C-alpha cells in the first residue's frame, strides 16, 4: 500500500500545518540551510575582546591555543566514537556529554587561536564560508595538530576510555585551574569555565576506575591492562614544550611541569583507593625528541582525521 504526499491545499489541512503556524514567510525554525544570511556562521567569540596581551608573541599564543584546542578536539572525537557503543545507555550519554564539553572548549580555543594569529588558519578557496574554527578543525593535516598523543590513540574497551578520561582530565583540570589566572582574558575565561566541566569528567572517570578495579576479576584485569597500555603516554602531558614554557614566563600559559606533583597526588589517591599499583613503565619516546606537541603523531591520528575531515574537505564551499 502506498501513501500519496499530503496535499497542502486539502480542505482538512495537512498534519504539517502546525509546524508552520504563525510563521508565514518566516523560515527561522528550519535548522538547515535556510537561515537568513546574517544569522549564518556562529562565532563562539562574537563580541569578545581578542586583543593579544602586551608583549606576547601572537604566533606563540595561537600555537599554544592550538595545543589546548587539539587535545580537546581529538579526544572529543574519540569519545564521540563511543556513541551507541557504550555498555549501557547512561554511559553512552555520559561519554557524549564529556565529548560535547570538550568540543565546546575546542571551538573557543580554535577561534581564539585564529583571532590571535590568522596566519595559522589554512587558506580556503576565495568566498568559502567556512569559519576559521572549522578551517582549523577540518583543513589541517596531522603534522599541524598539536595534541598530546594520549588523545589520539584508537579506542579500546570501556576500561580504556575510563583510564584515558581519568588521565587526561586530571592533567587538564590542573592546567586550566591555573590558566584561569592567565593574562590573556580569553584563555582565562575559557579555563575558568572548563574547570567546572572537567571536575565532573574527572569524578566520572575516577568512580568508574574504582568500580572496575574493585569489581570482578575480569573488570580488574581489563582496567590494569588499559592502564599499562596508556601509561607510557601520560608523561608527555606533563612535559613542557618551548612554546608553553615561554608563554608561561609571560604569564599567559601554564608550564605543565608545574602541575606534575598535584596531578600525581590525585592519581595516587585513585590508585590507592582502587588497590592498583602505579605502572612502572617509562614514557613512549618521541622521534628525535619530537612528540605530539611538535606535530609528531601516531598513525592513529591520520586515520581519525581522514574520517573526521572527509566531508568538510569534499565541500570546501559548503554551508552547514
Amino acid at each position: 500500500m502506498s501513501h500519496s504526499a499530503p496535499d497542502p491545499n486539502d480542505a482538512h489541512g495537512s498534519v504539517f500545518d502546525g509546524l508552520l503556524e504563525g510563521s508565514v514567510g518566516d523560515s527561522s525554525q528550519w535548522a538547515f540551510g535556510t537561515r537568513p544570511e546574517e544569522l549564518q556562521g556562529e562565532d563562539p567569540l562574537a563580541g569578545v575582546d581578542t586583543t593579544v596581551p602586551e608583549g606576547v608573541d601572537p604566533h606563540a599564543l595561537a600555537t599554544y591555543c592550538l595545543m589546548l584546542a587539539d587535545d580537546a578536539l581529538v579526544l572529543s572525537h574519540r569519545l564521540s566514537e563511543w556513541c551507541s557503543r557504550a555498555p549501557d545507555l547512561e554511559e553512552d550519554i555520559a561519554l557524549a556529554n564529556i565529548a560535547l564539553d570538550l568540543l565546546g572548549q575546542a571551538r573557543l580555543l580554535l577561534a581564539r587561536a585564529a583571532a590571535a594569529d590568522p596566519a595559522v588558519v589554512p587558506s580556503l578557496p576565495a568566498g568559502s564560508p567556512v569559519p576559521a574554527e572549522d578551517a582549523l578543525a577540518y583543513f589541517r593535516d596531522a603534522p599541524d595538530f598539536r595534541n598530546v598523543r594520549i588523545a589520539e590513540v584508537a579506542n579500546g574497551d570501556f576500561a580504556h576510555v575510563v583510564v584515558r578520561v581519568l588521565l587526561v582530565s586530571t592533567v587538564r583540570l590542573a592546567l586550566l585551574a591555573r590558566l584561569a589566572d592567565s593574562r590573556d582574558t580569553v584563555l582565562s575565561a575559557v579555563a575558568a569555565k572548563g574547570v567546572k566541566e572537567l571536575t565532573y569528567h574527572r569524578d566520572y572517570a575516577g568512580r568508574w576506575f574504582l568500580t572496575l578495579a574493585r569489581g570482578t576479576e575480569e573488570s580488574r584485569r581489563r582496567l590494569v591492562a588499559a592502564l599499562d597500555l596508556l601509561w607510557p603516554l601520560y608523561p608527555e602531558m606533563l612535559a613542557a614544550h618551548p612554546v608553553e614554557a615561554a608563554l608561561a614566563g609571560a604569564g599567559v600559559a601554564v608550564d605543565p611541569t608545574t602541575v606534575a606533583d598535584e596531578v600525581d597526588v590525585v592519581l595516587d589517591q585513585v590508585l590507592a583507593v582502587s588497590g592498583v599499583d602505579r605502572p612502572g613503565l617509562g614514557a613512549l619516546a618521541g622521534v628525535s625528541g619530537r612528540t605530539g606537541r611538535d606535530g609528531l603523531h601516531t598513525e592513529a591520528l591520520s586515520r581519525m582525521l581522514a574520517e573526521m575531515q572527509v566531508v568538510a574537505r569534499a565541500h570546501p564551499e559548503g554551508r552547514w
Partner: protein
Amino acid sequence: MVTAYAVARTVTDPEMPMLTLEDLGVLRSVEEHDGRVEVAITPTYSGCPAMATMRDDLVHRLHDAGYADVRVRVALTPAWSSDWISDEGRRKLAEHGISPPGPAPTGRGPGGGPVTISLLPTRRALSCPRCASAEVELTSEFGATACKALYRCAACLEPFEHVKEI
C-alpha cells in the same frame, strides 16, 4: 514601543522552554544606543549547542518588535553558574518535573587548594519533583542536556532530571 529589554527577557530557552533566558541567568545585559540593541548572553556549558538558537531567537524577536539593528555578543566571563537561575526559574523547573540545582561548588578545594576528586556518588539533598519523596537515587551525573543529571525516585519509581550545580 516596548523596550528591548522587555522583549529580550521573554525569549525562552530552546531546551527548557519553561524558562526564559533571564530565568536561566543566560541573558547578561540588554543595551540600547541610538536605535542599536546589543544583547549579551553567556553559555551554560562550553559546548552548549543551544547558543546559536538563543541568538537567532533574540534577533528574531527584537526584529519583530521593531528593532532593526541587533547584535548579540557572547559574554564569557564570569562563567555561568547554576546559582544564577532565578527563584522564579527554580519554581518553574520544579513545576515541570525538573529538580532545581542546589548551591554551586566553589571551584576550589579545601583551603583554596586544588579541587578534590570525589570517588563516591555525589550526595544531594533533593526530593522527587512529582511525589516529593526524599528517597531518590542518582542514575547518572550526565543527562539529555549538558546541564542535567538523571535521578530516579525510589518511592514513585519515576525517573526525573536534576539541573546540576556548576
